[in-house]
């Protein structure tokens, strides 16, 4: 394991930082206000080949590894958390295929996802169960050479815009979620699949979050990933591999808020001097700096470990699972704390929409909730300590 970034990763960071500053930051406030999915961002990331950073080269990806993806997510999230999320969701939605897909499925779906021509979504959560897998109801009944899906999903990121969705459903309800579930590849436009209500959210406002409805939706049996009964395992492993993405988003939000607050504190004058000169302010910034650096090290270490692991259905060790849960939990807690303090450093201005830190504070909150709440992360971590 190498402890410094490679020359390529440094140049990627520089490049994405520039692109973020020149092309993403200028519209961030407006996109947040409108709360509408932004296809121009999709085009921008397609043109700059940012969707397939961690996709295998044989399917059109850059094969640059998880750390490279996370660096890009971090740099985009510094200026716009929904933008960072967008490229990360491509990874999340596709991971079930990368982990459990067969050759034909990979050949059919990965290239267009790697290029960003198609967008991906990962559909697990239902109204009857978010944290609790036992609550899931969505069913898939075998019928000849296809499965019939019935049920609904809620809060699905990219749900209304994705072309390819990986959907978790019960094939054998008697056996329950742990043994009786499977994951299916569903394509936009399949008869019986429709998009329901879109959420109006506190943060990541232009990211599309939607309800998915399956009414006798016929999915070809060849779209089953792995085998019946593997659903729980596929979903868990997907989340283990995907959590660093959310950690990267959180880290970016934190770093963006910190950089803004630091520059502001050096400019803003009170009592005849920059507010940075007051220890009450500079210590806040010192604490932000400590936590962000610590979060970054934990996350990069996690990525360095994960990018050496095969993307298949082999089991992860408790240490590996713990690392990914710790990175997600710690980075998101840091993001929430840092953004709240950043608003404080800016005083009344920080509370207004004229300045970006209140948006960053709203955006930070989701990172403690999705892809497993931080309570669930602590549960996962504690389970590995038994």
């Amino acid at each position, binding site marked *: 394991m190498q402890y410094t970034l490679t020359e390529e990763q440094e*140049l990627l960071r520089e*490049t994405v930082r520039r692109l973020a500053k020149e092309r993403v930051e200028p519209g961030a406030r407006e996109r947040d206000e409108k709360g509408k999915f932004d296809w121009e961002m999709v085009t921008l990331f397609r043109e700059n080949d940012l969707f397939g950073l961690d996709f295998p080269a044989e399917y059109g990806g850059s094969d*640059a590894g998880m750390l490279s993806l996370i660096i890009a997510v971090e740099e985009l999230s510094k200026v716009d958390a929904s933008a960072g999320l967008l490229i990360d969701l491509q990874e999340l939605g596709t991971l079930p295929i990368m982990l459990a897909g067969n050759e034909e499925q990979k050949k059919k779906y990965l290239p267009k996802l790697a290029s960003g021509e198609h967008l991906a979504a990962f559909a697990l959560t239902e109204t009857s169960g978010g944290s609790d897998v036992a609550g899931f109801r969505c069913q898939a009944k075998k019928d000849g050479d296809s499965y019939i899906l019935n049920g609904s999903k809620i809060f699905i990121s990219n749900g209304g815009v994705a072309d390819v969705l990986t959907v978790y459903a019960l094939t054998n309800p008697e056996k329950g979620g742990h043994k009786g579930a499977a994951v299916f590849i569903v394509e936009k436009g399949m008869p019986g699949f429709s998009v329901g209500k879109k959420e109006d959210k506190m943060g990541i406002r232009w990211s599309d979050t939607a309800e998915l409805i399956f009414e006798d939706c016929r999915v070809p049996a060849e779209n089953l990933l792995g085998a019946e009964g593997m659903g729980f395992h596929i979903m868990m492993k997907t989340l283990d591999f995907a959590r660093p993405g959310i950690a990267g988003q959180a880290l970016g939000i934190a770093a963006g808020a910190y950089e803004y607050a630091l520059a502001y504190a050096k400019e803003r004058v009170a009592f005849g001097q920059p507010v940075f000169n007051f220890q009450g302010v500079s210590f806040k910034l010192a604490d932000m700096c400590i936590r962000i650096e610590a979060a970054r090290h934990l996350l990069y270490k996690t990525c360095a470990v994960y990018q050496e692991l095969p993307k298949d259905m082999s089991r992860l060790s408790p240490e590996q699972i713990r690392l990914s849960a710790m990175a997600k939990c710690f980075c998101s807690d840091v993001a929430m704390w840092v953004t709240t303090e950043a608003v404080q450093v800016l005083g009344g201005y920080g509370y207004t929409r004229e300045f970006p830190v209140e948006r960053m504070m709203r955006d930070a909150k989701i990172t403690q909730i999705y892809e497993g709440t931080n309570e669930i992360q602590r549960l996962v971590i504690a389970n590995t300590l038994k």
Partner: protein
Amino acid sequence: MKIIVLMKQTFDTEAKITLDGQGKINRQGVNLIINPYDEFAVEEALRIKEKHGGEVVLVSVGADSVQEALRQALAMGADRAVLINPEMEEVDEFTTATILARAVSGLGYDLILGGWRAIDDGSAQVAGRVAEILDLPVVNQVTKIEIEAGKAVATRDIEGGNEVVEVSLPAVLTAQKGLNEPRYPTMKGIMQAKKKPMEKKNLADLGLSADQAAPKVKVLEYFLPKPRAAGKILEGEVPEAVAALVKALREEAKVI
């Protein structure tokens, strides 16, 4: 079509300039970038190559740190790079142009592109000097280039309008803002860049002696502009304010 791009690494446009103890410009901790006008030249070279085929070769004079800028342009899609380190304390436009011209003549070319000026010293001399040494026509500050058989048609900004000129190739053309919008390197490009050739040379490799390239201009002193004092707003009714202004102009600013 063999296209040479003359490229310089400069301070970031947002860099804060300070002087060190010896009164020299402090380079410590400053973010370095491709001179933005040269970046237009790189982009244009790539577009011409994509349309007409050929090769894009980057040539730069500077310290080893310039490799970073060259790597970035290689990641954008240029084919190879040559970096000449003059190993001198200070260089002037004569030095740079002499070295560039020598390096370029050894490479062969159909077209030479560069930025019309560098944003750091802003002298806007180097490309023109290279053209002079190589006995080539030069068209400055172009905002559009069309390549046709053996010639280039270039549009340049002039006061109040545009001028379209035709020039036979080979020629030196310098890029002005508006020529294009440079692409960002992609990760695939970045990963390929590492495998592309980057030659490092010194003066001896080009058959130049230190004397032949020695600068003719010597910098005597660098100094920073005086910090601007805070403005002053005169309050009160207009007649009193005017009187106060006149008084301040006479007694404080001493301009009347």
